[in-house]
């Protein structure tokens, strides 16, 4: 059974279901559960649902310490940039304890944050920082692109025994889609083919998946069949599924909301250059944000972001390349 839900609600549904299932799951963050009328507070009580001050380093550190000792905390961080004031906790504490203790300690904490709010939030609130975390051994990084994935990956994140950074693109918050009711788990580390195709592989992350699919539809009208692969988890990264798609299509275009050298696209392109080289019939092409901070004013903001037209252009260029080579 499935029903239509908004992306944001799908995340909430997973949290509620997991909190009902497991009393060790607790939830806290800033600007939540302020009054006794808060529905989560009513449901789970003030021990398990808490308001935190603007203290991300302590908030995340407390989540780690609580996870080390038997809870499974979900820390609501709101915007991914707020992780940065506490970044040692994220990439140099949480992912290290299991390893440094020779396997004795586990840190099942979920750090939840929205990102990429390109709606006039300007330089400091619109970034994509997943590249800073996707290569840290011991840390898992999740970026769901649909309401169903949002639910299934949150459930998996909460159940995972490792620290998981759960990043949801703000721009998708109100998007609707079918979401399975009841227990629904999307395993971490498994990419999803969001649209099958044969001519070119589009690998896209988060909000960009939607744009890639839209571009693929338009390309179909012109007779170009694009496959859209959504890694869904950037760590562990499902390189295999991506390479297999490239094996089929022979061409790769990557779409990423981050600037080039801070994109997941570049890392994935690197993997394909090693493991999928023999299948490539054209250069890999990256459609990323331009190499600027995010400007406030709308025409400039639009200009630096990837969009359908830029994706289509990139696909056509890799298709054309082959024409030349052939």
């Amino acid at each position: 059974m499935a029903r239509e839900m908004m992306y944001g609600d799908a995340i909430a549904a997973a949290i509620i279901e997991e909190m009902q299932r497991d009393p060790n799951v607790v939830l806290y963050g800033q600007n939540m559960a302020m009054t006794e009328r808060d529905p989560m507070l009513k449901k789970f009580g003030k021990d398990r649902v808490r308001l935190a001050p603007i203290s991300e380093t302590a908030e995340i550190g407390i989540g780690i310490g609580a996870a080390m000792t038997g809870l499974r905390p979900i820390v609501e961080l709101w915007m991914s940039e707020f992780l940065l004031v506490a970044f040692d906790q994220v990439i140099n504490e949480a992912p290290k304890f299991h390893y440094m203790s020779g396997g004795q300690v586990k840190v099942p904490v979920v750090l939840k944050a929205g990102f990429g709010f390109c709606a006039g939030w300007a330089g400091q609130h619109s970034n994509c920082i997943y590249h800073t975390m996707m290569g840290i051994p011991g840390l898992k990084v999740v970026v769901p692109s649909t309401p169903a994935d949002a639910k299934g990956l949150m459930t998996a994140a909460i159940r995972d025994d490792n620290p998981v950074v759960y990043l949801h693109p703000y721009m998708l918050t109100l998007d609707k889609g079918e979401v399975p009711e009841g227990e629904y788990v999307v395993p971490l580390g498994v990419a999803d083919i969001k649209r099958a195709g044969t001519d070119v592989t589009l690998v896209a992350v988060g909000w960009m998946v939607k744009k890639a699919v839209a571009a693929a539809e338009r390309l179909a009208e012109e007779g170009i069949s694009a496959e859209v692969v959504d890694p869904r988890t950037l760590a562990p990264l499902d390189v295999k599924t991506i390479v297999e798609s490239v094996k089929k299509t022979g061409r790769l275009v990557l779409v990423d909301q981050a600037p080039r050298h801070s994109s997941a696209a570049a890392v994935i392109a690197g993997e394909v250059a090693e493991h999928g080289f023999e299948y490539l019939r054209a250069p890999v092409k990256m459609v990323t944000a331009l190499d600027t901070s995010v400007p406030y004013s709308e025409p400039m903001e639009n200009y630096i972001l990837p969009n359908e037209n830029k994706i289509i252009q990139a696909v056509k260029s890799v298709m054309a390349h082959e024409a030349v080579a052939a």
Partner: protein
Amino acid sequence: MKKKKEFGKDRLVWMYTQMVRIREFEEAVKRAFIEHPGAIRGHAHLGDGAEASIVGTLSTRRDTDLVMPSYRCHGYPIVLGTPLRKIMAEIFGRKDGLCKGFGGSMHLADPAHHFPGTSGIIGQSIAHATGAALTAQVKKTGQVVFCFFGDGAAKQGVFFESLNMAAVWKLPVVYVLENNQYQAYTHFSLEDANAIAGDPLSKKAEAFSIPGTTVDGTDPLAVYKVAEKAAERARAGKGPSLIESKFYRLSAHGNVITVPPLPTQFPEHEAVAVYGNKAEFAKWKSKDPVVKFRARLTKDRVLIEAGAKRIEDAARAEVKDAVKFALASPLPAPEEALHYVYA
């Protein structure tokens, strides 16, 4: 802004004028969400309620002293002399904006008017202001830095680290903790250990053995007095002070956070919208610093009704002109986005 110790009529009138200019400006920004839908993007935060605190503090400012607040930053450059046109145009994302449309409401900067810039990440600008005070000390400029930040920011580690370093290095900085009683939707009594114990937030100064004072932030003259003392201490090379200026934010935290294409708009104050506490809001509304100061000045005959009205009309006209200017200014060309990545 020359330093004027005695509060002569001119000075008091200047203070009222600045307070009114801030208030009129912020009300115009708020109205813009209705009158000019889409003109303001992202998140805008208003300073209404903070006027006495801002103007009271800056009354002790000397010509080259620097001012470094948080992202709730419209009020300060207004007092410093930045043209309202440029501020409004920036908030509207226009080419003629203070930052050419690159920064928006949260990131005003006007170094020419002693306003180096602001950060949207809570508390971080406290360190930047402290660094500006390092420049003043090393270069022996005699400048004081006025650093403003919220009650919420006082829970961020950088606040404590910065105050310790400023105290150890005896930097010329005045820290103004603007306790407007809310951090976003959270009343400060829910997240501050001092507050929960019934202590003032200025008690945090004890952690650095520096002076800590709590002042009525709705009274510009009371604020002036403690700010003057703190500035004197800074100028004398004795280091920083912490002032808790207690007032009340009179509008909601900021416009509602929405995903496009839903329109941005300004909601009701959290006291009412979140806590259902109309009485609290009404109580503080009755202490509106602009209204109170006006009453005081007219009662003390510093201002007559007509004089007050003249100030208000002038501010209204100035703000109206600023909105007009902003609306007339073009949006930046898309490819201008490629500028200013590297200096």
